[in-house]
């Protein structure tokens, strides 16, 4: 069964045909969601993305592949997860470990421009620490534009924002990230 056939059957009232879409695309959705939300929230947010897809299936016009449409819903479900967490003040603002602070300060002071930071653990910790200090909108735009290297146009289409809004917010978020890191380097 193709995606379109499954969609047509679901819209005709055969809800069980949604299982095909679920099986075919859950890996992609899990990957998108897994990169964006804490591990204990992945199942809930991925479920939310599929439920949105089911409810909005009649609005899928088939102009782009189904997986693109579903991916956008998954990104938006993650965005909403962070908005809800932010509203409830649930985002933990854990401090940066001493190891990560020293590593960053040491790396910043290194002369050799070619020296690659290879401490993946510290790089990852810094990333999560910095993202936790951004607003949900900044987090979403930074993830799309800088971490997933999407164009401004693609990010705007995904988030449903104007391109100008994406440019302004991503620029502001980048400046904020730089400032956060500078503070760590200056006061390790």
């Amino acid at each position, binding site marked *: 069964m193709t995606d379109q056939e499954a969609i047509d059957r*679901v819209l005709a009232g055969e809800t069980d045909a949604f299982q095909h879409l679920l099986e075919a695309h859950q890996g992609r959705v*899990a990957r998108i969601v*897994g*990169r964006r939300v804490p591990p204990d929230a992945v199942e809930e947010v991925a479920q939310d993305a599929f439920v949105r897809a089911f409810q*909005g299936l*009649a609005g899928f016009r088939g102009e782009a592949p189904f997986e693109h449409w579903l991916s956008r819903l998954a990104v938006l479900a993650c965005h909403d997860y962070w908005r809800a967490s932010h509203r409830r003040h649930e985002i933990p603002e854990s401090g940066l470990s001493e190891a990560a602070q020293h590593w960053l300060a040491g790396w*910043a002071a290194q002369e050799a421009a070619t020296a690659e930071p290879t401490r993946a653990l510290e790089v990852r910790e810094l990333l999560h620490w910095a993202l936790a200090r951004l607003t949900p909108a900044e987090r979403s735009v930074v993830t799309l534009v800088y*971490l997933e290297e999407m164009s401004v146009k693609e990010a705007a289409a995904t988030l449903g924002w104007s391109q100008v809004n994406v440019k302004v917010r991503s620029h502001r978020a980048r400046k904020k990230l*730089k400032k956060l890191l500078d503070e760590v380097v*200056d006061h390790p």
Partner: protein
Amino acid sequence: MPLSGEKFRRLTRLWAREHQAQDAPPLPAAWERGVMARVRGLAPSPPEPGWLSFLTAPRPVWRVAWGASLVATGLLVYAVASGDWASLDPGRWLLADPSGLVTLALASL
């Protein structure tokens, strides 16, 4: 000493690599059953409304606006139908002062 621009760019590239390398474990079968149980209790929403749907929109404001526009149209039709337009002779107006026509022509260029 702040982080140099070049090092910040390299760090964001490393973050991107790190982010893209993350892989999520497969979702359990119970998760799939949970989604299906949820969607069985729902019905797909109707398609997005067309541009004329405001005529039948349930929000009262649109009904009021629609009613007001009907009344306004009725008044306009009455005014046009009952006016003595022939005696005004708009052709004579235009010949007497063609500047309006010239402005219109320039504006349409």
